[in-house]
């Protein structure tokens, strides 16, 4: 707290000391209200009155080893590095906010506090070290409203999570996913979806979000994409009825075709147990190599394959030429849907050709 104004005072004090040619004294005031008469050691203060160093200078300090005894905080510091004090404060204030309910969510239920302080840190290691997600074209993301359209596969929607995180790392913005209603029916999944900013694909939620200048992300292949057999990987399925294009047209928001490579091999879907899926009311019930390995390897066997991912954000497709009334014109909507689909398919092929192997 003192760090800011001490800087000036010290300069003056040092100048005065230099002029008079005498050793500078500590400039603190004692409890009795007199000037401290000790000689200053450093920064214009004596040892007793040395202020708390500003956080930036603390990093330059030579590493201090504890002289002895077991010190939990010192141990923590060794484990977490030098920024641990600030991080501990962040964690404490986050916990306080959560305990007292002192945070805001938007009308759709997006909880930025939770997303940024829990989910982003949790997923970051997956993004950086497990799938080593690389990406290009972040400059194509508009500053205002925009619609990210990408391919969907991999049995579990890891591609949606990684695209969200990648966008957040590059632009600091949260893309708002549009999900099928099934997502919101499931316990925990639906709750987490809403809290991380997802909302229902049907209805006019997307219109509202675009109107507010948000980035909206859609995976128009839907369950047909995410539950497609392994042999069909990187072959785009039908893009629904093009509802997303109509939405983008109504809002005059650009569409950003996005190709994700690597995501379609994490859980190869060998067989779809349709009967079991029907019993549980699920769109598909996947049999993946991981499921077969589970009896032998245990939970480790269930891990997704650590493929190397690459996300390309393509050039935005401008929808403002068509005018908002084009949303009602099925021909325009179909044409544009096809164009977006074709663009993404070409981007996928290009990136597939460019990669050395599935894992590197």
């Amino acid at each position, binding site marked *: 707290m003192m760090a800011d104004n001490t800087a000036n005072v010290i300069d003056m004090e040092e100048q005065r000391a230099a002029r008079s040619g005498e050793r500078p004294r500590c400039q603190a005031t004692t409890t009795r209200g007199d000037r401290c008469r000790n000689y200053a050691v450093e920064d214009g203060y004596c040892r007793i009155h040395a202020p708390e160093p500003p956080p930036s200078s603390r990093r330059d300090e030579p590493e201090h080893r504890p002289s002895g005894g077991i010190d939990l905080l010192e141990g923590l510091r060794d484990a977490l590095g030098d920024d641990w004090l600030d991080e501990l404060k962040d964690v*404490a204030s986050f916990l*306080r906010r959560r305990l007292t*309910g002192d945070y805001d969510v938007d*009308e759709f*239920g997006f*909880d930025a506090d939770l997303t940024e302080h829990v989910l982003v840190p949790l997923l970051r290691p997956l993004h950086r070290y497990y799938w080593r997600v690389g990406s290009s074209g972040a400059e194509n993301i508009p500053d205002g409203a925009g619609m990210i359209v990408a391919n969907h596969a991999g049995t579990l929607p890891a591609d949606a999570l990684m695209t969200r995180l990648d966008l957040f790392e590059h632009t600091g913005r949260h893309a708002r996913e549009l999900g099928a209603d099934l997502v919101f029916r499931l*316990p925990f999944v639906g*709750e987490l979806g809403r809290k991380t900013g997802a909302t229902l694909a*049907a209805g006019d939620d997307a219109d*509202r979000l675009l109107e507010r200048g948000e980035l909206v992300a859609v995976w128009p292949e839907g369950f047909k994409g995410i539950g497609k057999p392994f042999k069909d990987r990187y072959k785009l399925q039908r893009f629904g009825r093009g509802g997303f294009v109509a939405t983008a047209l109504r809002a005059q928001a650009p569409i950003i075709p996005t190709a994700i490579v690597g995501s379609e091999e994490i859980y190869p879907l060998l067989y779809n147990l349709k009967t079991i899926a029907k019993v549980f009311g699920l769109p598909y019930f996947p049999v993946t190599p991981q499921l077969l390995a589970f009896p032998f390897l245990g939970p480790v066997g269930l891990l997704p394959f650590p493929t190397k991912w690459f996300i390309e954000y393509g050039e935005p497709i401008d929808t403002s030429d068509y005018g908002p009334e084009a949303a009602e014109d099925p021909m325009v909507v179909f044409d544009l849907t096809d164009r977006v689909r074709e663009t993404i398919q070409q981007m996928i092929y290009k990136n597939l050709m460019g990669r050395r192997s599935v894992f590197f």
Partner: protein
Amino acid sequence: MPPAGRRVLITGISSPLAGMLARALEEREDVAYLVGVDTHEPHHDLTRTEFVRADIRNPLVARVLTAAEIDTVIHLSTVAGPMEAGGRAQMKEQNVIGAMQLLAACQKAESLRTFVLKSSTAVYGSDYTDPGLFREDQTPREAPSSGFAKDATEVESYARSFGRRRKDATVTILRFANFLGERMDSAFSAFFNMPVVPTILGFDPRLQFCHEEDAVEVLRRAVVEDHPGIYNVSGPGVLYLSQCIRLAGRVPAPVPQPLVSAVAGLVRRTGRVDFSPEQLRFLQWGRVGDISKLTDTFGYEPKYSTREAFEDFVARRRISGLVNRDEVFRWERELYDFIQRKGQERFVAARRER
């Protein structure tokens, strides 16, 4: 001959909301005559509001309407739970048949110019296929099939058909979110009076609240101004149920979904909270109405946001939780101080070594 002032009839006058509204209207000079109808006497002190003890199904109401040349009817007597009415059958009788007969009487009353109906966002139902925000012109995929929501939907449809038959009258339908306030008792205030608040495991509904002051003000404006149409009325913003529980310092008790109806039955038997099936759906999926029509067309900015309404409710009802807010703040400060001290000690130690 222009009337000297408004002549207003309020149904369900013994409810706290009606009492507050009546007092607000009593203060206005352009309201010449006020009469309240209910089956039991109101407890609030009203100065010039006349009281007629009658059921709205009673032909007496029609006679009052014509004899007193009533020009404005505010229908507030729709009851939300079977506990209030003494059973679901009576509740339906009172809500639906009552509204029907009241509207029939209104149709015959030539002096009538304004009909204001207190409805609820419950008419949107609660489902996972719901849009994030309900606009007034949107209907749920499936119309509510039971309880209060069904009654409210039917009452609304009667009010709308009344509006079609009496083109000279203004019909205002106000769909209120859950009320919260010092005086008003709603299902939700009872809910947060419980020491542990039951929730449904894995679900966290988004909730919207309307502060009683805002509710009274919107009703008052609907009377003295002219606002035909349907309006959602609520404070802006939403709160998650989990967030409400934390703001109130309560402890959640998540109940796995298969056990929900059994637990609800137990709680209902204690008579503390009325858990109807539609309320359980609400606790699972929540519901949010879009209030932009209220702010843009009706021209009213609520004084209390959803969160402010809730915080006000917690403060006024003196809900003291098991988790004390000040304690939590104190823990945080202590940790900060500790960190500060540790940092200082380390810094000094590092210097001494050098």
